């Protein structure tokens, strides 16, 4: 099925992309296109104009700066999978399928804030930082402030997520996912990370309107207790024809137990 008509532009630098976006508020950024194009084909999205930033080399690749890895937003899932990043390669292994991983980008996924996406749980548990550039310059957003709501991240209109800063060394980490068998998106996913200072952080995705930390799980694990049950309240979770809120709450408990056992 064809998307509705649109104009297509390619940016040759981040600076040019930001200038074009400032001039034309109708411009919609396209990265790997593996969330945007499926939505456009179903006419769930009908942007009048696309700005292609996928080819921007300055936004691709991973470099180490002391204690952090700086990851370009256009780094594909396949590149993440082959990298030395903590936790993310394990998560990338579970994203979609090889073809999706060859096109889809880490920045596109995190900017998009799909409630069923895998990376957000890892981003929260790792406590990554997001570098966002806009007309007013550059700002850094902590993971806890990135996922605002369903398909809503802290990346605003006219802004570009350029890099993700990921702590380079953690003591242990795990991601456990219950995937939808056809789409492979997370019906529920839990990430647990033991940081360099020993503190454990955990988060879930897929089950609610947005990825969130798991404070009760963190409290128990940091006190040396088992993960236990009742980590999330089903009243705050999503239900659809694939899984009820109660089932998703149960999945979070089970996946948290499995992930905790591995860190």
């Amino acid at each position, binding site marked *: 099925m064809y998307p509705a008509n649109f104009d297509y532009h390619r940016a040759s630098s981040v600076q040019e992309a930001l200038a074009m976006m400032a001039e034309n508020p109708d411009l919609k950024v396209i990265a790997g296109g593996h969330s945007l194009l*499926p939505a456009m084909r179903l006419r769930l999205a009908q942007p009048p104009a696309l700005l292609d930033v996928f080819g921007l080399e300055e936004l691709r690749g991973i470099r180490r700066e002391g204690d952090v890895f700086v990851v370009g937003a256009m780094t594909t899932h396949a590149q993440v999978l082959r990298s030395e990043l903590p936790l993310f390669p394990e998560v990338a292994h579970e994203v979609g*399928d*090889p073809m999706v991983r*060859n096109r889809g980008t880490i920045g596109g996924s995190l900017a998009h804030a799909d409630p069923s996406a895998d990376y957000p749980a890892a981003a929260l548990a790792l406590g990554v930082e997001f570098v966002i550039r806009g007309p007013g310059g550059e700002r850094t957003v902590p993971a806890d402030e990135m996922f605002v709501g369903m398909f809503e991240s802290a990346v605003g209109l006219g802004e570009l997520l350029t890099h993700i800063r990921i702590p380079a060394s953690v003591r242990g980490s795990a991601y456990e996912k219950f995937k939808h068998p056809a789409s492979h998106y997370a019906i529920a996913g839990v990430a647990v990370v033991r940081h360099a200072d020993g503190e454990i952080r955990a988060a879930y995705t897929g089950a609610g309107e947005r990825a969130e930390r798991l404070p009760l799980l963190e409290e128990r694990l940091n006190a040396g207790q088992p993960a236990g049950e009742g980590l999330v309240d089903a009243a705050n979770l999503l239900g659809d024809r694939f899984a009820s809120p109660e089932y998703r709450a149960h999945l979070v408990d089970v996946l948290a137990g499995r992930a905790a056992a591995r860190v």
Partner: protein
Amino acid sequence: MNVTVTVNGKAHTRDVEPRTLLVHFLREDLGLTGTHVGCDTSQCGACTVHLNGEAVKSCTVLAVQAGGMEVTTIEGIGTAAELHPLQTGFWEKHGLQCGFCTPGMIMSAAELLRHDPDPSEETIRHHLEGNYCRCTGYHNIVFAVQHAAAAMRERQAGQAADD
């Protein structure tokens, strides 16, 4: 919009609407109908081609995004006289019934065998997660890929011995 895409080694320039998906460009503008459309949701993998050497779903790439790039389709990997080892593998191991998913299966498996000449059954199954078959049941598809992998390893060993 004018776009030039090199397909199976030959450059093609066409005037396309930006919304033209790469798969429709291949099928309708270039008449290369070996690449199939099996779904509307980017899931089935029947449209898999190689874009600058990487397997992608051509239903989820715009033709204009492929401008200046190289595409390989199922038509470009073997000939009727000399089939690609994966084509032989699907033939020998009955890796198909209706054959609709086969071009995508082969293009996807070809990428796997380039990185991993001797994949385990589990690796093959995980790698083909984005390619749906609705009749064979995957079992013989796994055998077909293993058959091709063995043939390609043998060929490689033969070449090494010749050198």
